[in-house]
Structure formats: structure tokens, C-alpha cells
């Protein structure tokens, strides 16, 4: 298992290198000249040239890449053009809301979707199944921003149950923290929930038709044990795979959610950086997201062995 993990991490190196090259090139293929962007709108051409030389932007690209990549490897992602703060510090400031939304969304979606999918499969063809699947289709086809605004209208403006927008850090108390997370998590989680519920149902349907389920029934076992232990454990891997894909897709959704709910997270940071061409921040965020993605995938692959004894690393 350790050997496999190391092998996978080694295999991730070229992937990350390619991501780094693409990220790096972003700065140089656009129509915006980084030097004049950094110098600001009021700078004279001489000042721009000075900055270009000071930052090494006049050197050959390969040269620039190697020194930039060397810095990244040593943990230095550069400083923001906008507010002169180190990129890592900026990200550090914004990571809590984003991680909170992501984690709660995953928990919310998985905790509801798996039982729903199991219930639908168990009652396949009945109204329970049709109802759950109809809800899933609706949830799946509603864009995050639409759900977000609908929820805000209903629960914050009409019923005044929850805050309209914003974020309260955990340090300020669990209550306000959670209250501010409810609507973002629900609106982001619905699509995810629908995806997992559908996958759970499909996989469970297949598993429930297997011979070993008939054996379990013939042994006199109860439905709960058959469903949860005998069937769900067999269905776990495709479901976990879907959850993994979902997490990757979540990254895009987080950006939208943070915008809708005015939450100062990584998503907002990214949007602001893109709008203002703050290249070091864009590069840093992309690299971090890619690394997270690689690690999540690895974690998911490793988890397969947890459910299926035939898989050994």
C-alpha cells in the first residue's frame, strides 16, 4: 500500500509539471503584458521597461519558467500584483470558508443521496422510486445560482430564518458559522446529491440482482442487513468514484456559490484575480487546486481496497 502510494505520487509529478507549464504560459499568451499590468495604468513606458528587467520578464521563457518553478517548489508562489501580499498568505486567509462549504456539501450530499439511492433501488418501479428519481432529475437540472437565489428569497427574505449572504468564521462561534453555511451548502449540494443518488440506485439495482443477495435472503437475513452490509458494501466502489468526480466538479460550483452568497473564499479570490489579471494569484490557485485534485483521486483509489478485499495495492 505504501509502495503503491509512493508510486502514484511519483506518477503525479509529470502531471503537476504539465499543469505548472500551462499555468505559467497563461501569463504569456494573453493579450495583457504582465510588466505593464504590474506597473499599473499610470506608469510611463520607461517605468514599465524597468519593471520588466527587474522582474526578469525580459529573459528567455525557459529561463523564467525554471526560476519561477524553483520558487514554487520551495513554497514561494510569488506576491499578488494587486495588494503585494504573498499568494500563500492570501490563500490562507480565504481557505476556511471554501473548505467549510466543500466539506459540508460533501457530507450533506452523501448523507442524503446514499440512503435515497438505496431506497429507490429497493423499491424499484414503485412510486417511492419514481418520486426519488423525479426529485433527482429536478435537482440535477437546476443551476447553482438559481437554487441559491430561490433559497435566499424563500428562507432569508420571506421567512427570515437564515442570513441572506456573507460568512462568519468558526472562531466567532459555531451557531453563526453554521447558519451562514446552510444555504450555500444546500444550493451547491443539490446537483451533487442528485448525481450520487442516481449512481447509488443504478449500482444497487445491479447488486441486488446478484446471486449472493439471493443467498443472503435464503439464509433468513433481514432486509436492513442485506441492504447495508451485503449490497451496499458491494456497491461502494462505483459510488465512491462518483463522489470523487463530484468533488472535482464541486470546485467550479464553489466559485459560483461564493459569488451568489458573497462569501470571501478561494472562489471569490480567483474571480477577483482573473478580472484584474493578478497572474501570481491565478497561478497559485490553479496549482493548489490541481494538487488537491491529484490527492483526492489518490485517496479515492486507496479507499477501494477498504470495501473490496479483491483489490490489494
Amino acid at each position, binding site marked *: 500500500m505504501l509502495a503503491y502510494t509512493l508510486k502514484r505520487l511519483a506518477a503525479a509529478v509529470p502531471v503537476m509539471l504539465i499543469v505548472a507549464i500551462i499555468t505559467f504560459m497563461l501569463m504569456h499568451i494573453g493579450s495583457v503584458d504582465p510588466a505593464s499590468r504590474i506597473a499599473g495604468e499610470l506608469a510611463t513606458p520607461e517605468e514599465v521597461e524597468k519593471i520588466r528587467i527587474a522582474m526578469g520578464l525580459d529573459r528567455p521563457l525557459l529561463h523564467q519558467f525554471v526560476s519561477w518553478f524553483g520558487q514554487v517548489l520551495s513554497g514561494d508562489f510569488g506576491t499578488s500584483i494587486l495588494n503585494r501580499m504573498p499568494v500563500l498568505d492570501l490563500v490562507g486567509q480565504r481557505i476556511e470558508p471554501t473548505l467549510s462549504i466543500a466539506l459540508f456539501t460533501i457530507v450533506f450530499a452523501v448523507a442524503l443521496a446514499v440512503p435515497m439511492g438505496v431506497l429507490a433501488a429497493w423499491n424499484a418501479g414503485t412510486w417511492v422510486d419514481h418520486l426519488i428519481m423525479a426529485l433527482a432529475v429536478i435537482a440535477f437540472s437546476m443551476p447553482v445560482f438559481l437554487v441559491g437565489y430561490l433559497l435566499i428569497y424563500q428562507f432569508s427574505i420571506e421567512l427570515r430564518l437564515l442570513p441572506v449572504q456573507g460568512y462568519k468564521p468558526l472562531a466567532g462561534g459555531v451557531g453563526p458559522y453554521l447558519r451562514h453555511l446552510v444555504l450555500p451548502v444546500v444550493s451547491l449540494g443539490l446537483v451533487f446529491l442528485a448525481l450520487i443518488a442516481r449512481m447509488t440506485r443504478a449500482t444497487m439495482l445491479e447488486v441486488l440482482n446478484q446471486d449472493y443477495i439471493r443467498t443472503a435472503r435464503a439464509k433468513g437475513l433481514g432486509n436492513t442487513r442485506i441492504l447495508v452490509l451485503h449490497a451496499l458494501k458491494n456497491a461502494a466502489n462505483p459510488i465512491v468514484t462518483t463522489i470523487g468526480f463530484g468533488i472535482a466538479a464541486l470546485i467550479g460550483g464553489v466559485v459560483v456559490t461564493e459569488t451568489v452568497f458573497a462569501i470571501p473564499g478561494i472562489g471569490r479570490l480567483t474571480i477577483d484575480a482573473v478580472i484584474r489579471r493578478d497572474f501570481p494569484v491565478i497561478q497559485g490557485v490553479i496549482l493548489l487546486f490541481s494538487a488537491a485534485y491529484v490527492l483526492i483521486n489518490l485517496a479515492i483509489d486507496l479507499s477501494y481496497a477498504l470495501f473490496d*478485499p479483491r483489490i490489494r495495492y
Partner: protein
Amino acid sequence: METPILQIDDLSTHFFTRDGVVRAVDNLTCHVGAGEALGIVGESGCGKSVTSLSVMRLVQSPSGRIVNGAIRLQGRDLLALSEKEMREIRGNEISMIFQEPMTSLNPVLSIGCQLIETIRRHRGVSGKEAWQRAVDMLRLVQIPEPDQRMREYPHQLSGGMRQRIMIAMAFACDPKVLIADEPTTALDVTIQAQILALMSDLQKRLGTAVVLITHDLGVVAETCQRVIVMYAGRKVEEADVGDLFDRPRHPYTKGLMASMPHLHRGLGNGQRLKEIPGMVPSLLDPPPGCRFAGRCAHATALCTTEEPPLTETGPRHWVACWHTGAPAEVAQ
């Protein structure tokens, strides 16, 4: 004769499909005495598995339904039981072994887990006692190093081993009746013989009544006392094993015997192996009359219009055929 332990009377199990009603089992009656081994033989698709699943009340619902009949275990009507009561019977008083040892065990649960859960489900024993009982059962079915096997998973074992585990599981709660649905079909010949010998041995030692389902008359000859021949969802002949082999009455039974290599050689009359021409008819809205009529060399007009009743042609020997009165003519 003492009362049978398992009585199936007039059982009809049908599947209500989009294309029509599949009469998988039609008016089947059979009785199994305590400690007796009953064989059910017939070609693929004649309703053997559906019969056994009916006894367990595990026929695929909602399309499959027991539409008629009674199934009694020691006089107790299983069809009248609630699903909860039925779960107390399954794996406990009636247990079952399936055809496919490769897929009948759960691939993600250890052998020990699967054995122990059966024992604990029906015997209110501690985990430790259940473990001990499971190990004893593995020893009983002659699995080497049972303690180690308990921790292994199905994919680490051969087909023969897995079927032994299924047998251990089936016998774990001392069932009164064991239904074995083609337990050896998927195994190779030498393993087949071992598994059959093991089952016979356990059956005699523990006094369990066995219903052995197979399409191989040779297997029946070796292990059973009585035998039922099924054709297209119906019982066409029933007799003691020796009697059936000596005096088969139904043309289908004779056809089955003629298509068996070793039995035939035993007859020593120089005839070649014959296969029964034609195919099992569809069970979807079958035509009236004898269902074998379409493949029978002796079929007459009567056969295609009227269903032959089961008649007793000898001691404990029943046949459903219009032409059993003329064995000489049928025999060639």
C-alpha cells in the same frame, strides 16, 4: 407411511410478464419424507429452480407469484406465514444450496462473516460460540485449516471449496430440509463426485431430508431414494429410483435415459445414444394437452387436446401419459 416432512401440493408458480403468463410450475405435487432424498430431474427451463424458490418463498416478485397450492413443513403452511415468520424458516429449518458456487458467496465479506451471520441469525449465541460452530462446520465439510479459511474471502478459494462452504452454511443450523439446486453442475467431474459424496454422507449422518435438483439422472441414481421427472413445469413421472430406472413409463423419462451415456452402456443392448428431438416448448401460454406431445413419437390426437392425468401404474409409481398402458409399443 409416516407423514412427510415437506409436502408440496398442487403448486403453481407463474410469472406475469409483458408477453403473457409464464407457467413455470403447474400443479406440482411432491412429498419428501424425513431423512429422505428426493431427486427432481428435467431439462433446462422445466421449472426446477422456480419450484425450489417457491418453497423458500423467494420467487422474484412482483412478476413471479405462487398462484395456487400449498407448501407444508411438518404440517405448517408456509404460504400462510408472514415474511418475518418466513425469515425464521429460511436458513434454519429449510436451507438451500445454489448452482453457482462462484457467485453465490458475497465477494466482499469473509467466509467467517458469512457463516457466523447465519448461525447468529438463528441461534442466539455469542460471537465466540458462533465462530466455534462455524469452524466445526468447516471441519465437517472437510475443509483443511478451517481457522485460516474463516478469515479468507471467496476469491481466494476454488469452486469446489466454495461449494463446501455453501454446504457448511446450509447445514449450520441443522435444517430439516435441504434444497440443493444443481449443486454440482458448475464443478468439474472429480469435484462433483466429492461434493455429492459429502452431501450424501452429511444427509445420512444428520438425518436431513434433501431435495436434489439436477438434470443428470446419474446423480439421482447415486444419491436419491425417490425421483420426480419434470417436464415444462409439470410432473410427468414419480417413482422410487430403482423402479424408475428399471421400468421408466413416460416417453420423456425414457428419452432422458437414452441420452445418458453410462446408464445406457449398462443396458448393453448395443443401441447408440439418442437425444430427444425438438425443444422444450415455451411456457408462455402453453397449448392444451400433454406438453411433451410435440416431441413424442407416440403422440396421438388425444395427447394434443387433453392433459393426461397422473395415474398409479405400479407401487408408488405415477405417470402422466395416455399411452402407459402399452409399454411394449412405447419401449422400442
